[in-house]
């Protein structure tokens, strides 16, 4: 018997043995979930749709970068206690859960046809789409940086990777006695305490290696956005004479050559290293799909399912959404969005109603030195009457003071959330 005939006969016999229902089932395609973006939100959603459907939903993740680089902990690269390689991982663990990874970028979404068009050509169909596009920057609010060439020397380092390393290199080559100027955009932006942790990390580096140097924080907001009392105490007690904090300095333009930030009142502040964290909005793909209708910046969602209010069968999670009250744009929160969304997607594809009262937590650690850490934590419950998540009264809080113990917990958090996201 030729091999081909053997296979054909074998297949026919198998079909008979399994009976008519199984043949009918086998002919039905598995429901398809397409996840766009492989960061904290998207990777977690892809894994948990597989996990909670017992592998009965086909999950494809589209992500152009083969490396996951953690934004949490990346300020430690600026402080010098971690290398960017320490924060870079692959996504092979997701493949062990049966997630198919497509190394491409989604160019556009067609909700009518339920398909995503790939930049590299072709399109992928879906029954439900989960978008976790992160943030992109609103460059036209900083005219001096609007042209990409102007940005070469002025880094944001607000997406961990080569920018983080390049900013570290700028700090290393700065002469002692220089000034590091950091601009903070108006809230909301990714990682509320991140800029202030960064100020601590650079101050930590200066205190060890360049003690005559200064850190100047120009904050568009009226006060430190997160963990304010703790950060201000650290700056005073540990980094007195190094960190200067200036609120209500809303950077509206930048002179890249002079390394100067210009405020809306016309104040001009130049530094030796200028680090501009630009104003932010939902990632390009969500905006192009017409989902970012809140202020033209963020994507409103139904908080029970994270389905977009603008397009059926399209869910949006992570930093890109219009948040509920007191909900930070954090990696931990993206992980939590992903799980509520994944559970709802499995419910909906099973013909069931989504769970009525989902919960979320947030725990966010900030390193104020190479070892000492402070946290903020919160618990959020879905409120049916207001159709949003509300912080549970009496829960949550802050550290009393920085501690090495919380430094150990912060590293434990990183190891566990990386495994929960990618493993």
């Amino acid at each position, binding site marked *: 018997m030729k091999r081909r005939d053997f296979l054909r006969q074998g297949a026919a016999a198998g079909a008979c043995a399994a009976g008519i229902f199984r043949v009918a089932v086998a002919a039905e395609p598995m429901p398809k979930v397409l996840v766009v973006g492989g960061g904290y939100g998207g990777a977690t959603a892809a894994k948990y749709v597989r996990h909670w459907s017992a592998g009965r939903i086909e999950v494809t993740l589209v992500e152009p970068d083969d490396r996951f680089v953690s934004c949490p902990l990346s300020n430690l690269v600026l402080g010098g206690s971690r290398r960017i390689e320490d924060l870079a991982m692959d996504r092979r663990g997701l493949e062990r859960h049966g997630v198919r990874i497509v190394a491409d970028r989604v160019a556009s979404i067609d909700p009518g046809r339920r398909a995503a068009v790939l930049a590299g050509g072709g399109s992928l169909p879906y029954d439900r789409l989960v978008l976790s596009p992160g943030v992109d920057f609103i460059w036209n609010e900083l005219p001096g940086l609007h042209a990409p060439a102007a940005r070469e020397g002025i880094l944001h380092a607000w997406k961990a990777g080569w920018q983080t390393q390049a900013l570290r290199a700028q700090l290393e080559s700065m002469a002692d006695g220089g000034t590091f100027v950091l601009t903070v955009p108006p809230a909301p932006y990714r990682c509320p305490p991140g800029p202030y942790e960064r100020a601590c990390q650079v101050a930590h580096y200066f205190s060890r290696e360049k003690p005559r140097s200064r850190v100047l924080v120009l904050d568009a907001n009226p006060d430190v956005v997160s963990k304010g009392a703790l950060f201000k105490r650290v700056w005073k007690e540990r980094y007195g004479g190094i960190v200067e904090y200036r609120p209500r300095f809303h950077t509206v333009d930048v002179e890249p050559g002079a390394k100067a930030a210009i405020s809306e009142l016309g104040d001009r502040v130049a530094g030796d290293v200028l680090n501009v964290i630009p104003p932010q909005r939902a990632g390009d793909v969500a905006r192009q799909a017409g989902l970012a209708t809140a202020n033209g910046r963020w994507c409103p969602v139904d908080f029970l399912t994270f389905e977009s209010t603008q397009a059926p069968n399209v869910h949006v999670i992570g930093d890109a959404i219009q948040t509920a009250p007191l909900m930070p744009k954090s990696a931990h929160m993206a992980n939590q969005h992903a799980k509520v969304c994944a559970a709802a997607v499995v419910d909906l594809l*099973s013909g069931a109603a989504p769970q009525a009262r989902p919960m979320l937590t947030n*725990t966010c650690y900030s390193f104020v030195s190479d070892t000492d850490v402070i946290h903020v934590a919160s618990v959020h419950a879905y409120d049916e009457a207001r159709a949003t998540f509300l912080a549970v009264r009496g829960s949550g809080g802050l550290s009393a003071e920085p501690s090495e113990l919380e430094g150990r917990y912060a590293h434990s958090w990183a190891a*566990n959330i990386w*495994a929960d996201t990618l493993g």
Partner: protein
Amino acid sequence: MVMDLGCLRRVTLPGALLAVALLLPQGVRADDGARLAATCTACHGTDGHTLGDALPPLAGQPIEALLASLRAFKSGERSATVMTQIAKGYSDEQLERIAAFFAGQPEGRDGAAAPAAPGRGR
């Protein structure tokens, strides 16, 4: 066969849903305990399979011990950096379901393989 019964149960579902509903029998979906417990697992590892030695593992621990800890964190009787603040966000009944979920998980590392070691990403 569970799958076949699932097909028969759902033939009344409306058109578009039918094709996808066929493959997802009711029992497949995560129960409330799994979903509530998933709010803990960013710090405590998938299904309570905790990595490292800074935190105790939760998977497969006795339900009484898990619940006693959660209640003590909630009341403040047991001090902690974060858990006293988190536990207060849950009702007693939610804490019971969370404890029951983790107690029902196999001990060890099942389903919680660590990602590739940092630094070997490329």
